[in-house]
C-alpha cells in the first residue's frame, strides 16, 4: 500500500466546514424546498413578484424568511441550507457563486478575488 502524505501534516491547514448531514437536511428542509422550487421559471417569476408571499407558500418561519430576504447565505448554512440548493435563490435574484462565496468569507467580491491566483478566470 502506498503511503498518503498530503493532509497528514499536523501543521497543515484545517478546513472549516459544515457537513450536510441528515439532521441538517431535516432542519433546513423548508428552506431547501423553497430554494429547489426555483428550478421552475414560473416559480422564479412568482418569487420575484413577492418574496414574502413565496416564503409563506413554503411555510418558512419568520427567521428563515429573514434569511431569504436578507440573502444571508452564512445564516442559511447555519439553518440547514445546502449551498447547491440556495444557489438557486442567488440565480433567481441575479447573483452568482462568487458573490455568495465572498459573503460567506466576510469579504467583498474584490477582496475575495485578490486571494485567487493571478491567472484566475471568471469562476
Amino acid at each position, binding site marked *: 500500500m502506498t503511503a*498518503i502524505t498530503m*493532509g497528514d501534516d499536523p501543521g497543515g491547514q484545517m*478546513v472549516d466546514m459544515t457537513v450536510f448531514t441528515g439532521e441538517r*437536511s431535516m432542519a433546513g428542509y423548508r428552506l431547501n424546498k423553497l430554494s429547489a422550487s426555483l428550478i421552475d421559471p414560473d416559480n422564479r417569476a412568482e418569487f420575484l413578484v413577492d418574496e414574502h408571499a413565496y416564503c409563506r407558500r413554503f411555510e418558512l418561519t419568520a427567521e428563515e424568511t429573514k434569511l431569504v430576504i436578507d440573502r444571508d447565505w452564512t445564516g442559511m448554512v447555519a439553518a440547514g441550507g*445546502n*449551498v447547491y440548493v440556495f*444557489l438557486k435563490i442567488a440565480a433567481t435574484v441575479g447573483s452568482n457563486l462568487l458573490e455568495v462565496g465572498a459573503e460567506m468569507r466576510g469579504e467583498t467580491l474584490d477582496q475575495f478575488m485578490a486571494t485567487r491566483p493571478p491567472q484566475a*478566470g*471568471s*469562476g
Partner: protein
Amino acid sequence: MGQIVGGIGVSHAPSLARAYDQDKRDDPEWRDIFESYKPAAAWLEALQPDALVMVYNDHVNQFFFDAYPTFALGVAEIFAQADEGWGKRALPDLRGDTRLGWHIARSLVADEFDPTICQEMVVDHGVYSILPFLMAPPWETPIVPLAVNVIQHPLPTARRCFDIGAAIGRSVASYDDARVVVMATGGMSHQLHGPDFGHVNPDWDNEFLDLLESDPAVLCELDHSEYMRRGGAESIEVIMWLAMRGALGSAVRNIHRAYFAPMLTGYGLVCFEPG
C-alpha cells in the same frame, strides 16, 4: 461480449459551462485549460464508443431531499438538460441507451447493488458542464447515467463507488458486442460554503490522480472525513472517480492527464485504457 474500452475522470464545474458558452478558448486565463481537453476529445473520438456510462451527481435538480437516492440509474430514450435556476443553456438533450441501461440495471441488482431506476431524469452541470469539451454536440453517442449521492450524508463509501464501478465492468462484459466508455465527473478539491469557501489543495488532487492510476485500493480505504479535510467538504464528489477506476480492472494505462486549479475547484482530467 461487451468491452470497457476507456475511462475518463474529469471535474465538473459551473465555471466550465460559462467558459464554454462565452467561448473563452482564446482568453489567456482559459487557453491552457481548453487545450488540455483536446487530446482527450480526440482520443475519445478515435475510440468510437457505442455508449457512455456517465457517473456523476445531481445537484438537487432531478432529486430533492423528499426522496434522495444513493445510486440512481437512468434508463430513458432522452435525458433533458436541467434548468438549475439560471435557465437552460443552448445545448441539445442527451440520448439514452435503454437496452444497455436495463441490462446494467438487471446485472447490478443481481450483483446485489440496488440502484433506483429512473425512466425520466433531467441531467445537470454534473454532465453538461464538461461533456461539450470532450465530445462536440449534438451528441450521437447514447449514455447510461448513474447519479450518486455525494451531497446529503450518509454517502456511499469510496469503496462502494469503486465496487459499483467494478460491477458495471462485469455487466458490460456480459453484454453483447459493444464498446463502452465509463466517464466519472466530480470536482476535485473545492469547498463552496462557509469561511473557507474557495479552499483548493492542488498537492492532494495530484496525489489522488497518482493513486487513482497506480493504487486505487488506498483511496478506497479513506473515510469521507479524510477526503473532506484534505480537499474541502464538497470535494467528496471525487469518490465518484473510483467508479470509473473500478470499471476498468486491475491495471490501467494512462493516456492523458491534466490538472489546473485557477479559481474555486481543482480541474482534473485523466484518460485511462484497460491493461
